[in-house]
């Protein structure tokens, strides 16, 4: 049973839909900007972020919007975009053969802050509005998207930080392959907050040296990289079994060939090249694809000193120097739970256009990241098969393999 992508939706720091996002990539733009106002937060050194531009959810009923934080709003819009492209209506989803899998790193950090601040100030739940918890609960994105769709079917909400949406896609692929569902709507979202940067800043993984040069911050694989820049956004795809897509004449955008998720339990923040290579090998095996058949590798590489070097070593180990590699974090920043599906979607656009987007801000390749074909300029070439990595805190290593339809 083959599994196809038949719809895509995204909101990123480069645009509020797939086309504007991809155009931003083609133009080599960055969504990163300075946040000098974050100076007020004691102990925060990284004053950079990549926010999503203006969007509207005014078309949703108030009682749907009231439980949504930004991450749920963006996820809902991305889902509507994906369903529109797939030519699936809300009514089409009312089937026990349809599954929604959507997640985020945590509940809304902005609401978590106000929620607990009030609890501490008032010594209890006094003064809490009823909808606060619905923005803070772990499955807030999934529940809110379901509400926006008036969806009464199967709903899952995986959460593994930066690998969340990749895991959602792989899970969807597995469950369709297993014959349990015909359609899976999969994705993830996260919203920008100073503590999203703070989480990485605490472990010295966030960029600190480019606060006054945001355009140059977020430099995957570059010798002068100094950490990631936190971002926000949403990415959602519609996955569909071959039989279901064929029966309704759906337009296929790409085929999900396979994927895998594995844990590196050796360290909470520092996955090793060995386990990264392991998940790539397992993904290729499950996809039935040989390393030499891969035309492009979309790296997770967030611009951290340790992570990029380990991923480069892992790629070298599996592919040697045969596959062009780029990370899109230099353009978007790191959109956490959204990045997996956003990068899947952007890679599918690269396949469509036969155009590989290069690493942004890669001036001098760090010797620790050498030995692989790191893209420094756009490359026009046929792209049939792609591998995409995403790694997360907690040793959550994921890898996805997909190909032209």
């Amino acid at each position: 049973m083959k599994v196809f992508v038949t719809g895509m939706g995204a909101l990123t720091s480069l645009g509020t839909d797939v086309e504007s996002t991809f155009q931003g990539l083609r133009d080599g733009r960055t969504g990163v900007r300075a946040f000098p106002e974050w100076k007020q937060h004691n102990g925060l050194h990284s004053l950079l972020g990549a926010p999503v531009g203006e969007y509207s959810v005014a078309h949703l009923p108030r009682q749907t919007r009231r439980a949504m934080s930004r991450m749920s709003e963006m996820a809902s819009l991305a889902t509507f975009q994906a369903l529109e492209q797939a030519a699936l209506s809300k009514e089409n989803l009312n089937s026990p053969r349809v599954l929604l899998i959507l997640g985020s790193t945590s509940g809304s950090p902005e609401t978590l802050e106000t929620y607990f601040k009030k609890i501490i100030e008032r010594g209890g739940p006094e003064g809490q509005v009823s909808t606060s918890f619905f923005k803070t609960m772990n499955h807030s994105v999934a529940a809110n998207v379901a509400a926006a769709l008036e969806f009464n079917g199967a709903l899952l909400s995986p959460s593994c930080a930066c690998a969340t949406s990749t895991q959602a896609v792989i899970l969807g692929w597995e469950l369709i392959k297993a014959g349990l569902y015909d359609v899976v709507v999969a994705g993830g979202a996260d919203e920008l907050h100073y503590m999203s940067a703070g989480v990485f800043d605490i472990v010295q993984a966030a960029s600190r040296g480019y606060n006054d040069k945001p355009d140059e911050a977020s430099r995957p694989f570059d010798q002068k990289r100094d950490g990631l820049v936190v971002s926000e956004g949403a990415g959602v795809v519609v996955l569909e079994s071959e039989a279901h897509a064929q029966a309704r004449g759906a337009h296929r955008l790409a085929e999900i060939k396979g994927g895998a998720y594995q844990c590196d339990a050796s360290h909470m923040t520092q996955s090793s090249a060995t386990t990264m290579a392991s998940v790539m090998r397992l993904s290729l095996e499950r996809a039935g694809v040989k390393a030499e058949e891969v035309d492009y590798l979309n790296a997770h590489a967030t611009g951290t000193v340790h992570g990029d070097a380990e991923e480069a070593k892992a790629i070298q180990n599996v592919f040697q120097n045969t596959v062009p590699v780029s990370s899109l974090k230099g353009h978007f920043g790191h959109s956490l739970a959204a990045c997996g599906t956003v990068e899947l979607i952007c890679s599918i656009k690269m396949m469509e256009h036969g155009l590989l987007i290069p690493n942004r801000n890669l001036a001098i390749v760090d010797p620790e990241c050498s030995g692989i074909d790191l893209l420094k300029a756009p490359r026009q070439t046929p792209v049939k098969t792609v591998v995409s990595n995403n790694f997360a805190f907690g040793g959550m290593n994921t890898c996805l393999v997909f190909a032209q339809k």
Partner: protein
Amino acid sequence: MLNQDPVDPSLIQQINDLMASGFEIPPEKLVPSAALKELGLDSLDAVDMLVYIEDKFGIKVEGEKLTSLRTLQDVYNLAAEAVSKSK
């Protein structure tokens, strides 16, 4: 009905402003006889409405009375009673 005494018009206006801004209700629908259900408010909205009123007037409303609220007049009366007690 919780309290039949006339309610201060300025308090009514402030509550109407809260209802309009908090629940996106068109001002012309905010008449004393309007049923909360007809205004599109459900049980979660009723909880939030009391929180808004408490924060706005710095009062504490008895939550047990929430279920007895039917119309906007009931809300005016409940708020007026709480304001009066707080003085």
